[in-house]
């Protein structure tokens, strides 16, 4: 007998009413939606059950029985297995129906990380996801790789999607087209453009690790996708929330230096070099400072870094009625870095609005405007940099006294800029104006069929200006330089999807999506350089005696047709198949489209297991999908270009030259016969819930990439350096574990633990015909990053010591080892495994949580350490009043090896054996980058003010980031990357800017 049931749905978190929750009578199409105050009214029978569901919340089922009022509270607990997740193309699905692994990360986890960059905020939070920061300076890029590198020289990072529309995450460097080297090795730590996303606007993040993403997003998601969903409005009284966060950064770790010996060239007798003269050397092999009259000890490094400051204000307004909801937010970040003068400011405004125009037609808009600007510091292999002149500075020199009377740089070695002087006189500033957003329209054709369109745009202009003052060593004639660079990018994206959902005799459930996509990316890059400046401290191009300009632009178009078809049987078996055929403008003549299929399935095996308390939920899943990439733009033809002439030491001559232009064929050969790069990924997994409180997700995957599109290096003697080609095979196999448990669940106290662990084994299976090794990207003469058959991708590759068959170091008559004639593999820069463990304690209104982050393995070339040893700057080199015997063996006249006993001087030991002086092999400075760190520590207190106070809630948080770090790495924080997110090089540290640790306090007030 049918009667009216009423009730109210609230949020378990704060008891606030939840509008928009769907309430359905189980097994029927009867349903309603809760109103602004969370209340609902529905007709149901006593034997019926009601299902309450809301995106992002756990579904609940309540038997009607005799009750007239059924009120429930829904939780957002993402550990539950029957949650709803946003998948590719913005299609929301119940997690249990998925045949592949997805991981959802909640808004709190992003906010608690206290990072301004939404990519860096994911660090150690997801299994199979490696986040590689590039240092602690404001705006420094962060790279992200999911399930290992899948391609050799093209993009290995996932697609970033906000509210269903891809957003650009490029890392744009300021570089002239005629610059002959890899501009990532020096210059500033550029930003990856996901920096423009305000973390406070994010409601949740879904990491699509492989097949699912590739199969529906196509080529751009071949390396996975990260889907950010922003917070939307809720019907009800208009609510205002304000939060303020103040964070203070300190340098986390630096190489240890000696403060005993003075500046002086190497030699048998130490001679004090007072520094600052044309003939002064950069070495610290002088006598003890205490023995030199008038000389003093300075701790330049300690003096140099300052406490970084971060202030973040965020205001949001949400509200609406049954028909229209909205959310408005305004966010402002002000950061000052640990390196003096560096800063970042970001202002973002966002509006999200949804409106039910008629019963059938709903429309929504989601849009952001962001202004990101800042001042960046020089990094890396750079005599105008921060760390290079700083870490080399002798302890007998006062770096803080940085300028001469005429304002010029004053330094211990005149061929480096004093780092203070450089920061004050050689600023790099950038400014990005960005708008991104979309309009989505949904038209309900019938009960079970709807048509959805989502059209979005992402456009930005990034302007950067690098100034080198007159006198700076950055410019070879000391006459100063101005560089201005503007990137203008625009991406227009539109999906049209027909969605149907039908239930057949309560057992079969079919969901189908059929759609098409059009995408156009355009970009323009304008670069201008002025050199030989006339008036000091005046930085307009009209102050330059020589001007250089270049530009480039591109248009890339793709179109696609796709489908996603899901069958469910008895809510127990799920089978999904998808397919996408994509056309791309970047192919040559042979083939311009390709097809990505996928099949995945899941089985909720607990449906047939008798009810028990051990396994309360269990799912087996399996998926197979084909992905792939299309070539980069304009790769099909061999083109003429203004050539570069680089000998590795100077920037070389370039055109225009003496009033003439010059062109020759680019050293990259085109290829009109390109095929798409293919990858096939298989995964199987098991999800279980044990004892009602332990969740476990296990995944094994095997991803094989073939026909990899690679700028395959060719013999220089062919007249070319590379040809874009389909060559090579690579595999990634890995295992991912996600576990969470409610260890204790008392009335006022809960203790929860979450663990993620993953390992990825990458192996290059095959390269081009006859080629066993290819360079991933140009690096240093002494060390590079290679793909080597049989080895993990990106292996560090450089000079090695001569060893005997037993692997012992062979020492020469001079007591030193020598360099082997062949360079070789020096280790894998990617970790063997990584893990994150979060533990959370909640007592009444107080929450305490800690995130421990472990990285095991992963080699880093510590070029900083080698050079500092050579110069006599490391703490170790203070032990120099003695000789050293290098452990190794000596080859006797009898052909037998005996232990080496020949002593060498401390200078030989540190400069050659441990350093990078002539005769040293680079293997001596490849170090283990493992770490264990306390990535986050959060203490929160939340109080709901009862009654009619204008302030409804107050929340206080204390956050620590990287407070504790354990590592054997002898340098800066090993979470470092010389080249940042715009590069495929990993594991390089050559005077990289240091990482930071943070102490933060935040307050959040709800009105």
């Amino acid at each position, binding site marked *: 007998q049918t009667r009216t049931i009423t009730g109210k749905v609230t949020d378990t978190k704060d008891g606030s009413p939840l509008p928009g929750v769907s309430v359905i009578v189980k097994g029927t199409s009867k349903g309603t939606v809760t109103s602004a105050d969370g209340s609902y009214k529905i007709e149901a029978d006593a034997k019926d059950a009601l299902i309450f569901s809301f995106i992002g919340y756990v579904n609940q089922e309540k038997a009607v029985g005799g009750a007239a009022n059924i009120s429930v509270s829904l939780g957002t607990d993402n550990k539950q297995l029957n949650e709803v997740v946003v998948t590719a193309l913005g299609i929301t699905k119940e997690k249990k129906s998925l045949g592949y692994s997805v991981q959802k990360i909640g808004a709190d986890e992003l906010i608690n990380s206290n990072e301004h960059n939404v990519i860096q905020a994911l660090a150690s939070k997801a299994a199979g996801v490696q986040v590689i920061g590039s240092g602690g300076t404001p705006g420094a890029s962060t790279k992200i790789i999911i399930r290992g590198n899948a391609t050799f020289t093209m993009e290995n990072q996932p697609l970033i999607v906000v509210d269903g529309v891809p957003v650009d995450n490029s890392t744009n460097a300021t570089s002239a087209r005629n610059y002959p080297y890899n501009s990532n090795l020096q210059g500033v730590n550029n930003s990856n453009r996901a920096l423009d996303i305000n973390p406070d606007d994010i409601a949740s993040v879904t990491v699509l690790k492989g097949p699912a993403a590739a199969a529906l997003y196509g080529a751009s998601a071949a390396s996975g996708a990260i889907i950010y969903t922003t917070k939307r409005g809720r019907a009800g009284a208009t609510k205002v929330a304000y939060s303020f966060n103040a964070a203070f950064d300190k340098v986390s770790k630096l190489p240890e230096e000696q403060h005993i010996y003075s500046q002086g060239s190497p030699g048998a007798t130490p001679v004090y070099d007072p520094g600052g003269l044309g*003939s002064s050397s950069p070495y610290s092999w002088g006598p003890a400072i205490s023995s030199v009259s008038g000389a003093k000890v300075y701790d330049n490094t300690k003096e140099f870094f300052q406490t970084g400051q971060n202030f973040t204000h965020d205001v949001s307004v949400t509200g609406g009625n049954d028909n229209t909801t909205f959310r408005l937010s305004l966010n402002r970040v002000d950061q000052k870095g640990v390196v003096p003068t560096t800063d970042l400011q970001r202002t973002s405004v966002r509006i999200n609005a949804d409106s039910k125009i008629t019963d059938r037609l709903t429309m929504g808009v989601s849009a952001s405007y962001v202004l990101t600007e800042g001042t960046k510091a020089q990094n890396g292999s750079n005599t105008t940099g921060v760390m290079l002149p700083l870490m080399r500075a002798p302890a007998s020199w006062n770096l803080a006294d940085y300028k001469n009377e005429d304002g010029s740089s004053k330094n211990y070695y005149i061929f480096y800029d004093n780092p203070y002087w450089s920061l004050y006189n050689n600023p790099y500033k950038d400014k990005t104006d960005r708008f991104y957003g979309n309009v989505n329209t949904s038209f309900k054709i019938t009960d079970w069929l709807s048509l959805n369109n989502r059209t979005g745009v992402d456009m930005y202009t990034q302007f950067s200006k690098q100034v080198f003052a007159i006198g700076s060593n950055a410019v070879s004639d000391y006459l100063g330089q101005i560089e201005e660079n503007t990137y203008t990018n625009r991406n227009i994206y539109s999906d049209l999807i027909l969605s149907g959902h039908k239930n057949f005799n309560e057992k079969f459930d079919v969901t189908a999506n059929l759609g098409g996509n059009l995408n156009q990316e355009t970009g323009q890059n304008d670069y201008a350089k002025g050199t030989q400046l006339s008036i000091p401290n005046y930085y307009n191009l009209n102050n330059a005696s020589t001007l250089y300009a270049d530009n480039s632009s591109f248009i890339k178009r793709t179109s696609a047709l796709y489908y996603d078809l899901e069958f469910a049987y008895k809510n127990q078996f799920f089978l999904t198949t998808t397919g996408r055929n994509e056309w791309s403008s970047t192919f040559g003549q042979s083939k*311009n489209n390709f097809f990505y299929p996928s099949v995945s399935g899941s089985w909720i095996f607990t449906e047939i297991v008798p009810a028990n308390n051990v396994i309360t939920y269990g799912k087996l899943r399996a998926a197979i999908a084909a992905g792939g990439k299309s070539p980069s733009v304009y790769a099909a033809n061999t083109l*003429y270009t203004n050539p570069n*002439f680089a000998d590795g030491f100077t920037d070389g001559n370039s055109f225009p030259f003496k009033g003439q232009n*010059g062109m020759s064929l680019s050293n990259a050969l085109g290829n009109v016969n390109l095929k798409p790069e293919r990858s096939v990924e298989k995964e199987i997994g098991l999800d279980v819930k044990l004892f009602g409180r332990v969740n476990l997700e296990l995944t094994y995957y095997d991803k094989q990439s073939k026909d990899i599109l690679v700028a395959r290096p060719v013999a220089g003697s*062919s007249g070319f350096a590379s040809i874009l080609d389909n060559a090579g095979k690579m595999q990634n196999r890995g295992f991912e574990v996600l576990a969470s448990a409610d260890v204790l669940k008392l009335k006022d106290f809960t203790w929860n633990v979450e663990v993620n662990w993953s390992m990825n084994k990458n192996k290059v299976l095959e390269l081009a015909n006859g*080629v066993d090794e290819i360079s991933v990207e140009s690096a240093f003469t002494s060390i590079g990053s290679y793909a080597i058959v049989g080895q993990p991708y990106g292996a560090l590759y450089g000079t090695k010591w001569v060893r005997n068959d037993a692997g012992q170091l062979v020492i020469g008559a001079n007591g030193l080892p020598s360099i082997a004639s062949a*360079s070789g593999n020096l280790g894998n820069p990617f970790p063997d495994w990584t893990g994150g463990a979060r533990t959370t304690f909640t007592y009444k209104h107080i929450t305490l949580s800690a995130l421990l982050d472990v990285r095991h393995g992963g080699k880093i070339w510590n070029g900083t350490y080698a050079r500092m040893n050579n110069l006599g700057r490391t703490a170790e080199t203070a032990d120099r009043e003695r000789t050293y015997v290098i452990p190794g063996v000596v080859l006797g006249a009898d052909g037998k090896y005996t232990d080496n006993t020949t002593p060498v001087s401390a200078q030989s030991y540190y400069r050659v054996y441990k350093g990078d002086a002539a005769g040293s092999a680079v293997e001596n400075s490849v170090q283990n980058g493992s770490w264990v760190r306390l990535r986050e520590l959060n203490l929160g207190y939340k109080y709901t003010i009862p009654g009619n106070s204008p302030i409804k809630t107050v929340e206080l948080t204390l956050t620590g980031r990287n407070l504790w770090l354990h590592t054997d790495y002898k340098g800066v924080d090993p979470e470092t990357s010389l080249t940042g997110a715009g590069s495929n090089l990993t594991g390089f540290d050559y005077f990289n800017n240091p990482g930071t640790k943070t102490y933060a306090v935040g307050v959040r007030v709800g009105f």
Partner: protein
Amino acid sequence: KFTEGYGESPNNPTKATPPLILSAAELGLFSTYTGTLARISATLTQQTGGVQAQMLEIDQYQLLNTANTNDWNNLYNNVVQPANDLIENYGATNQQYAAVMKIMKAMALGVATDVWGDVPATEAGMGNITGNLTPKFDTQESIYAYIQTLLSEAVTTLTATDGTNNYTIGSDDFIFGGDLTKWVNTAHILQARFANRLSKGDATGSANTALGFLANVTDAGDAKAYYGSVTAELNQWAVFKVDRANYLKVGKYMVDLLQNNNDPRLPYYADKTDAGTYVGAAPSSELTSASEVGSYIAGDGAPIPLVTYAEALFIKADASFRLGNLGDAATYYNQAVIKAVTQVTGTAPDAAFIAAYASATAATITEAQIATQKWIALYCQIEAWAEWRRTGYPAITPNADNVTGTNAVPRRLPVVNDELLYNKANAEAYKDIDIFQPVWWDNL
């Protein structure tokens, strides 16, 4: 279709013109002749001393196969490849351009084989034309023959009165501004340079051939790398001096010899130190306070000689000496020294210098004299290392404190690693040849 018609790059053309390609190849040639290979040559023969970083490694004979990839690629990518491109794709209607390109190709291949021994030559730099991305290595003997063929073909074309030439060479030619007679003159000196190199195998024949090529050579104008005063046009030795400060100084042997000889070239070859004197850096001395390379080579806009009339005179002296024409040898030698000094200082040497170093007679002239003065004249040119290997003069002492364990001056560079990686089948044979093994003409 939505995606069609967007394949053509708005940034780079698919066709160029002969003047554009010639200009590009000339800068490539400048870079080859005046870059790292020149610094290696000068350091190994102790004209300069490497005192820090990579230059110290060279000074200590740490010559690894990973160190010269840029130089190898520059030579093939920026000289040989554009030369072939112009000859094959534009040459039929621009024969003079093609001929000049042949001379430059010969110059590039000459350096390649003198430095590395057997190298790809006949099939090299043709990736876009033949599709051959793994050119075979030619023997040095056949490369020397190939170079002579290229040069004589060039001379024939450039001296012909007819021919098809859609474009006329002009200011796009930085070396001679389109003066084809100077190119012919230079081609003849080059023919003589490579003929004379074979003296170890055939002292008389090589001398006769060389003299034959020089029969009509005049002091028409030296082939030089010309630079400008704006950033992109700077002399790269001058830039190196600043960007890589304290890496490379003048060698002790050179400074001592010039000082001892009272040679007027000293202030042009070396800068005074902070202490106001001329000091050379001895091998392994790491003497960063030694004199910088002077303005003749490392001056801001200074042109760097590539092929000179002075060299032609030295070849004449050397060839005549081998033929036993000692009178001629002495005459050419005296002319050569005076010419060499004049080209550096701008004025003829004084009487005392002439009396001491440019007044040889048939009775006094020696091979050591000719070779040593030629070594001085070829300051910072790659040719100096080749000639030192051929003649053994001056008698420099190898750096005993070198990293190889062999007490000798290196006689070649190892074939670059990238070639071993990407042209494996052809390069494999050269993998284990050490740097002390003489090249073919050095071992005749």
